[in-house]
């Protein structure tokens, strides 16, 4: 980060290499309940990221000494597929994925009513199938949809997105080149209803003002992404309900007609 190279990250009109404005997100698509075996799941595309999240549990923790008699353990496993990056990644956990798994687990734990399921684990698996910067934010956003899909009791969903600094300007949602050659990257995650921050990392160089500017920009973006998460769950589950309502209305109408006759 911070290296000077010949890549122009922003043009004179403030447009970024993919044509986005400084406060514009990459396209995001979310789908809930996409796997059969898992208790809950979600698929998410965010720019060049393609991510699957699945939830199993609550289920009895094994081995026994991992059981907490007061609450469920929230265990998130972030994993990159070997083919998810340009230079093939060796399969299996590395230091980076272990750290990411830890902070994502902690962020998710905050919204889950873990005390309802003592001695269990709630396992969240995030598979990065295709990566293009911002995988932890995308993964966390998908994971919270998968948790809701699994029927896990929780305070709220969690929404995540990053801001950063490129070409001396604070921008939202870095893509790969911006992440590699920009001046700062700040992934964060919030509880949308209360605006509490449950994940925050930063590397690079920012002034206090830039940090605050970025924070409010990311907050606003998170609210928009939250809308997409809700939409994904609604789309999956409300079709059945809407069908009912239509039928109910029809039936009511029929009843009325019968009364008239």
């Amino acid at each position, binding site marked *: 980060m911070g290296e000077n190279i010949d890549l122009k990250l922003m043009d004179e009109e403030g447009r970024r290499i993919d044509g986005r404005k400084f406060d514009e997100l990459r396209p995001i698509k979310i789908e809930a309940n996409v*796997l*059969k*075996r*898992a208790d809950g*799941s979600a698929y998410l595309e965010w720019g*060049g990221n*393609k991510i*699957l999240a*699945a939830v*199993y549990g609550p*289920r*009895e923790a094994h081995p026994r000494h991992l059981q907490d008699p007061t609450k469920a353990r929230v265990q998130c*496993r972030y*994993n990159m*597929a*070997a*083919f*998810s*990056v*340009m*230079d*093939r990644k060796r*399969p*299996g*956990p590395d230091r980076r994925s272990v750290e990411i798994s830890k902070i994502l687990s902690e962020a998710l734990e905050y919204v889950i009513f873990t005390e309802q399921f003592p001695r269990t684990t709630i*396992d969240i*698996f995030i*598979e990065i*199938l*295709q*990566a*293009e910067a911002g995988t932890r934010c995308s993964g966390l956003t998908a994971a919270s949809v998968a948790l809701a899909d699994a029927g896990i009791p929780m305070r709220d969903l969690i929404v995540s997105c990053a801001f950063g600094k490129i070409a001396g300007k604070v921008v939202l949602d870095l893509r790969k080149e911006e992440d590699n050659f920009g001046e700062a990257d700040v992934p964060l995650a919030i509880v949308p209803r209360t605006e509490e921050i449950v994940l925050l990392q930063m590397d690079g160089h920012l002034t206090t003002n830039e940090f605050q500017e970025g924070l409010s920009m990311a907050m606003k973006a998170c609210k928009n992404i939250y809308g997409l998460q809700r939409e994904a769950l609604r789309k999956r589950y409300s079709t059945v309900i809407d069908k009912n309502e239509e039928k109910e209305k029809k039936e009511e109408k029929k009843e009325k007609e019968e009364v008239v006759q």
Partner: protein
Amino acid sequence: MSDEVISEINRNFIYQLTEKGKRIDNRAPNEYRPIRVEKSVVETAEGSARVYLGNTVVLVGVKIGLGEPFPDTPQKGVLTTNAELVPMASPTFESGPPREGSIELARVVDRGIRESGTLDLEKLCLEEGEKVWVVFIDIHVLDYDGNLFDASALGALAALTNTTVPASRFELGEDFKLPIMHYPIACTTIKVENSLLVDPSLEEEKVACARLTVTTDENGDIRAMQKGLGGSFTLEQIKNIVTSSQELAKVNRKYVLD
């Protein structure tokens, strides 16, 4: 936990059905579940395919890199196959280093491709004994409802058929398609009591006593085999399985070719 123990009731029911030539999901003994193959699904991979076999979902990515050839084949490119049974796919899959299940899966898929000469590995040599293209096949199991062998083998072949060697990225000339010579298709049959069932679902796998995977090429020739599980087959059964595998491979090959 309930996944490891199948209830005696369901075991007996499956036995009872197979005696009448029936299956728990209404399929015929030699009938596959619906198959769907999607190609080029991962842009970071040089080739990729997602295979749906009933409810089983497998994603295969092919990456191409540079490396040294093996000393005994200095003029050939290198092929390696790896499988990850990621814990997302089943409550019984665990995180951690590959276990015997995923290693067997990777090796069976690998043999089908290697022994059939699917790839013209000599065309992947850059400097004899020094520099060759390395083809990595990575199998990512996403949803496990039985018969990973056939789904993975189908996915691997489909991914290879749409793989482009990114030579220009390494400044080694123009990109080119992987040279595909053959189209091997794996067909797995299990034995339940004395009946033979192809493409077992998870529930059927749990009551199987023996399993045989037969990989055949477009000429119907046998290119790889793997017998698994604690039971046995009679000679007659093996012959029948080979014949039906050749027939079924013909049908399933179409999913890769189009």
